[in-house]
């Protein structure tokens, strides 16, 4: 499914705050068609900022960002965003809408027929492992993990070819998380979407990622395939691998 066509392409992209603080510096990488590109990095390294530049929730300060070969500036911003599914880190469900209406919002503003929308909502709930009786509930009546899954379903709703997922499984217990990761992988293999997936969990990165981009203080430190990541000589990557390796060994102690 993966081919080398760049779908999202950063060329020397920087993002600077009005006060001069550099949040992202000279980022250059691309996400290729059908791959899951992991953005890995510690808290505050700029992962969320990078995603928000893609759908122009933030405007880049310099450099160029292309989506499907076209500079993001040249896209109509609404069209660009409808082309890209976005599961935000804080989930951000609409508290005044039921689960079903949350998921159905984009299809409904695109005037899908009602029965098609209903069918799509049911399909997506099943896909993210939620029972359909949840669809008439409000977000405050869900657990944190259920909310996250609704957020993922909402991002997938209008079947966008590109997905931005900002720690979509962060609030889940390890078992549900593993289930969803598996579901997500098989989904991805069927649908062939191009995914930019943010996490700071190396296990998740290795399980899901086609390639892994490591960010540190707004810079790209390494970009490798998931396999190469484990054996990379790059010091920061080694630190990462060690940190996770240690916790793993500790857990295995009797």
């Amino acid at each position, binding site marked *: 499914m993966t081919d080398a066509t760049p779908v999202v392409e950063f060329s020397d992209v920087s993002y600077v705050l009005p006060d001069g603080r550099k949040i992202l510096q000279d980022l250059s990488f691309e996400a290729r068609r059908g791959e899951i590109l992991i953005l890995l990095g510690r808290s505050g390294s700029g992962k969320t900022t990078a995603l*928000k530049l893609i*759908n122009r*929730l933030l405007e880049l300060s310099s450099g160029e960002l292309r989506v499907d070969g076209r500079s993001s500036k040249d896209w109509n911003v*609404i*069209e*660009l*965003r*409808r082309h*890209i599914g*976005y599961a*935000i*880190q*804080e*989930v*951000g*469900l*609409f*508290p*005044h809408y039921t689960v079903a209406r949350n998921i159905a*919002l*984009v299809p409904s*503003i695109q005037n899908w027929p009602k029965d098609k929308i209903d069918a799509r909502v049911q399909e997506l709930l099943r896909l993210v492992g939620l029972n359909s009786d949840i669809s008439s509930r*409000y*977000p*405050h009546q869900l657990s944190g993990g259920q*909310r996250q899954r609704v*957020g993922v379903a*909402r991002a997938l709703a209008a079947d966008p070819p590109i997905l*931005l997922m900002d720690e979509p499984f962060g609030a889940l217990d390890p078992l549900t998380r593993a289930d969803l990761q598996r579901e997500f992988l098989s989904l991805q293999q069927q649908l062939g979407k191009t995914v930019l997936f943010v996490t700071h969990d190396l296990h998740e990165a290795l399980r899901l990622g086609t390639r892994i981009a490591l960010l540190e203080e707004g810079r790209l430190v390494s970009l490798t395939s998931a396999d190469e990541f484990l054996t990379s000589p790059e010091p920061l990557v080694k630190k990462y691998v060690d940190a996770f390796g240690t916790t793993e060994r500790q857990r295995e102690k009797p």
Partner: protein
Amino acid sequence: MNFWSFITQNRYEVASLTLEHLWIVGISTVLAVVVGIPLGVLITRKRSLHKPVIAIANIIQTIPSLALFGFLLPAPWIGERAERLAILALTLYALLPLIRNTYVGITSVDRAIVDAARGMGLTDWQLLYKVELPLAASVILAGIRVALVISIGLATIAAAIGAGGLGELIFRGLAMVNNSVILAGAIPAAVMALLADSLLGWLEKRFTPQRAA
């Protein structure tokens, strides 16, 4: 003559003054809503307008009501009838709570919700009426509630310029040094304010969004 016998003997007059009062307050509040909510929305979109607009609304609010009636007197068409003058003055007073609450209501919608909505490709207009206004509704209603209660009280002063309403009884009672007549104007106005307050309070509660999303 005590309060009750005054009220019963003059019930038609009291009723018609009450209706007049309601009319002045109602029209001015509707006008303030029609002008204030869009202005409140506008200053969330053009943040540079926020300070000047709020400052002007604040200044209007500090003008004593009788002085404001006086200032408006030379206005064409408006100045011709006391009732129009009163409606305009009350509208101006009601603007501040409406503009301010609309602004606060919209800007305090959780950033994550707004980011999610924009990220999904909602237009600014869709964001406003599907997300921001519904989530700000309870705060905006609180603004209408404040505006209404203030207007009901202020409208009694409009009688001083001959705009009618329950203030007429109050001023007449003052001139006659008759408490019953004063109360015949003041009590219906107070009841009106209490009713408006609890009705809007109830609406406000109904429109309060559930948190934790």
